[in-house]
Every structure is written in C-alpha cells, then in structure tokens.
C-alpha cells in the first residue's frame, strides 16, 4: 500500500448464510474520488484522484471486477450477489491514481 492513511473498508454480508443461497455482498471504501473537474477553495483545479479498479476474488478466481471512472460517487460502494456453497474468503483489491493500492479480505461463514 502506497498511501500513508489506511482506507476504511466496510463489507456487509448476511450474518447467517445457508449453503447455496444467493446473498448480497456490499463493499464500500472511503475515498474522495476527486474527478479532476472541480476547483478547490482558492479556485485552483484539483488534480484527479480516483479509484480506478476494484476486484473481488474467491476460491474459484475472479468473481467480480469494476472499472471506476470519475463519474463514480465519493466513497464508492458496490453491491453484487454471490452464491457461496461453503466457507470462503473474499479477497478484495482496489487500485487507484497516484499508486493507490489496497487489499482487504472478508470471511464468509456458511452454516
């Protein structure tokens, strides 16, 4: 990770997961997503600073990926759906401008 401040990540999944049931996975990361089209308080154009890619990997490999553009809202969140058959760990990975990179993992407990 190249940034000094560790970004806040929230992953929301149902607390109880039954095998073979489709569940929503909601992932959010704190990021200003500066589009490069806005000015600061002094009227200077702010340099673009956005997240550019998000990937979610599971035991089978890549599950879901998202290429983000300046049109994404700040603190980007995305919700997608999974059908876990057993216990699995989601590997979440973000890339962004200025060398930003962050990894996070989330355990899905299926019972």
């Amino acid at each position, binding site marked *: 990770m190249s940034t000094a401040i560790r970004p806040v990540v929230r992953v929301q999944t149902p607390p109880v997961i039954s095998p073979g049931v489709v569940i929503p996975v909601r992932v959010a990361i704190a990021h200003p997503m500066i589009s490069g089209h806005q000015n600061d308080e002094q009227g200077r154009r702010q340099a673009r600073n956005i997240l550019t890619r998000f990937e979610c990997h599971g035991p089978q490999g890549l599950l879901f990926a*998202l290429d983000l553009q300046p049109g994404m809202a700040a603190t980007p969140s995305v919700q997608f759906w999974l059908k876990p058959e057993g216990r699995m760990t989601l590997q979440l990975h973000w890339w962004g401008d200025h060398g930003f990179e962050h990894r996070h993992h989330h355990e899905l407990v299926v019972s």
Partner: protein
Amino acid sequence: MKRRRWIQHATVIGWGGPASGLLGAQGFATPGLGAPGDGRPAIVGSTVKATSRGGVDEPNPVPFDDWPAEIRDPIHRWTQGRPVVCQGLWLDLPELVDNGNDVALQLRAEPGAGTNGCFIERVTVWAPRNPHPLVLEAEFTRHLPRAELMTRIRLASSQRVFALARASDGRMFCAHRSVLVALAACIEG
C-alpha cells in the same frame, strides 16, 4: 400531482421524456415519454415490430446514428459494431435527484439474457452529459449467480443515462433512463 406535472413539463436534455425504465418491448420510444408526436426527439429504431400473426418479434437493433453524439463512437468501439437491442437489461435510477454527486443506480440483467449457457460478462454505464461520459464498466463471471449491481454515480446535469451489456455469446443489450438533476455534480467550485 404538482410534482408530477412539473416533471412532465421540465426540459430534459437528451432523448425523450423523464422516465423510461424497463425497456423490453418499449425500446427507446416510450409511449407518451418522448414518443413521436409529442414534440420531442425519440429513438424509433428499436421499437418492437408486430408480426402478421399478432405476436411480437425481437426488437430491432438501435441504429448507429440514434445514439447521442457524445457517446456514439465510444459505444461503437465497445460493441465492436455488433447490433444492440434494447431488451434484457433493467436500469433503475431515480426520476428526480436533489444532488447529482450521489445518485443511486441499480442494474440487472434479465434472466432471459443469460440463457443457453451464456452469461452477461460485461456491463457499462454511460452518462452523455458528463465531462467523462463513461461512468463504470463492470465484469461479471460465471461464478456469480446473477448479473446485478448497485452503486452510486455522479451526474453533471439532467440527462438520459445508458447501460450496455455484453453477453458471453456476443449479444449486446441496452437500457436507458432519464434523470432530472437539481444540483449538478462534476462542474462546481
């Protein structure tokens, strides 16, 4: 009622009227919402044609010239010139948005779009009136039970938002929806 009347008479930049969510058999020419005859431009290339037996055929592909000029070439590159039909994809956005910096978006491929062993592998969202029209590009895999996502986007002004999906067999689908934005995003400060 007052709000509804205001929405009906508000000027929406781009195509058609303020709301045309689920496409399916409607195509770009949603009756009463930007359809021919109400004085506003409408896309008629993807309307459904009735068969002589009274049934309904597949919708016609969207003609290249019918896409908004801002996204015509990028969409042509993304689709690699393949025909795009306005069905199989469901796009949900609010009709009226107070703050364009934070607009909830939901996108879902209809079950019929991923049959016969194929699946929706890529989805894009386009906002032609944004400084950067391409908003996002999502990649789904076979391991996901459904091609559906929810996220939040920025809109620079009132406009029609487009979503395109590509199935693993090469078929292309689209959906669109108009949004009125009270406070614009992107160009401020």
